């Protein structure tokens, strides 16, 4: 039992420290890199809990795709954090208020989790050892919760269409590549062989 506990404190400690550094770092790019470190450590915690599928998905989706886009945007925008820090005291009460609301909500969720009637059995129920993590998740997700799962997919689809509609600008003047035209070019239409006499030019 020493080793898992040791790794738990390692992952949890680095996770909290890097989460703090996300808001404390001077450079926004460093903030995003610390955020990535926090994600990776959180996935380490998932592995310790035996949820290896969630751990890998966390890395693939959040670190491999979402955080890349974060980093991308932060690198492109020239944000001066020192300037942003100027009015920090002015906004402090609002920030504290938001923080307190979040903390209260977290406590409520955790409290509901602890006192909910069926919870002790659910927590103490052994994970079926014959079934892998992935299979167990799939069996629940595609049977009991299949409609919620599909609804979540539809919400994401709507968000995706919304993002495309918001950013799509149709500019009739813009020159576009037409691949079929390019492929349809033949030797006759694309090339002209000219015999040039020296000293004359075309």
């Amino acid at each position: 039992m020493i080793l898992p506990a040791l790794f738990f404190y390692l992952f949890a400690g680095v996770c909290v420290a890097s989460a703090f550094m996300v808001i404390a770092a001077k450079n926004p790019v460093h903030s995003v890199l610390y955020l990535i470190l926090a994600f990776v450590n959180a996935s380490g915690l998932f592995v310790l809990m035996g949820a290896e599928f969630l751990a890998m998905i966390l890395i693939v989706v959040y670190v491999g795709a979402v955080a890349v886009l974060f980093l991308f945007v932060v690198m492109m925008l020239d944000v001066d954090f020192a300037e942003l820090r100027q009015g920090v005291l002015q906004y402090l009460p609002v920030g504290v208020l938001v923080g307190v609301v979040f903390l209260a909500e977290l406590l409520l969720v955790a409290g509901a989790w602890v006192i909910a009637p069926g919870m002790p059995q659910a927590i103490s129920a052994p994970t079926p050892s014959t079934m892998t993590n992935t299979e167990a998740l799939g069996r629940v997700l595609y049977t009991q919760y299949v409609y919620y799962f599909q609804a979540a997919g539809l919400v994401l689809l709507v968000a995706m269409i919304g993002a495309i509609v918001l950013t799509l600008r149709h500019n009739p003047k813009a020159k576009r590549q037409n691949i079929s035209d390019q492929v349809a070019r033949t030797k006759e239409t694309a090339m002209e062989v000219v015999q040039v006499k020296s000293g004359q030019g075309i």
Partner: protein
Amino acid sequence: MTFAELWTGYLWPLIVIVAESLLLLVLLLVSIAYVLLADRKIWAAVQMRRGPNVVGPFGLLQSFADLLKFVLKANKGVFLLAPLVTCTLALGAWAVIPVNAGWMIADINVGVLYIFAISSLMVYGIIMAGWASNSKYAFLSAVRSAAQMVSYEVSIGFVIICVLLCAGSLKLSVIVAAQDTRFGMFGWYWLPLLPMFVVFYVSALAETNRPPFDLVEAESELVAGFMVEYGSSPYMMFMLGEYVAIATMCAMGTILFLGGWLPPFQVAPFTWVPGVIWFVLKALFMFFLFAMAKAVVPRYRYDQLMRLGWKVFLPLSLAMVVIVAAVLQFGGLAPKG
């Protein structure tokens, strides 16, 4: 806890794992040295040049001479972190790759996802290098690579899903075992999933920034791309990470489509050869395909690259996932889970 318990419980397994990892690392790095040489030799042969032939017989020691040069010719923070990330991640992927039945450091339940996760993290090395170099060319290259690698990861993901549907497991050893049918090499997934094999090969080229998709380091436009500010050891680590990533993709193609360590047919002369030799031969064949693509295909234009990824491969692989799932479900071929 007594010392005996500590020894059998933690210390001895730790020693075994460290020894296994070291063995794999040494073998892998020596192979990479020769794969790098093979890359230059194949390219040279196609262009009717000799390639490296000065150091050692036929230039066989060229890679080691390069190593010595890099180490002996030896600034800060994210700039140095970038090559370290690239190199470490690339080597880390090999922890789960089975080179023979039971020959792997860790046979985890989500092996395919682990490799997929690592290859999706590889982009950070390039982005960090491009940003920390503080130079226009390097930064443009990093921006290009982020878009390119994220785009092609999508189609690699769907290719992997097709294979998973057929094999019924995320475990790499089970995926190889599922290809052990009475049809021999024609039962490996390259034939039933031929379109996906092609998509995987092309996407792997794009994912590892190999020619014809090496727009990240297109020297005619970006000097040397994200690596332009690097020299000596950090540059060597980038180079090493890149080639190890290519080797990982070759191993991945071997496991997913070419039956891993399985012999072409389960009959006498083929079964005498150890599985690890078949694995290496198949991975080298995959690498030969990679090297030939570099030699014979001209570089893509960036808009063509994006079009291929999003408008050709994405719909094709999505359709294949649906078709494969339908055939397995209604043809009664689905693996029993």
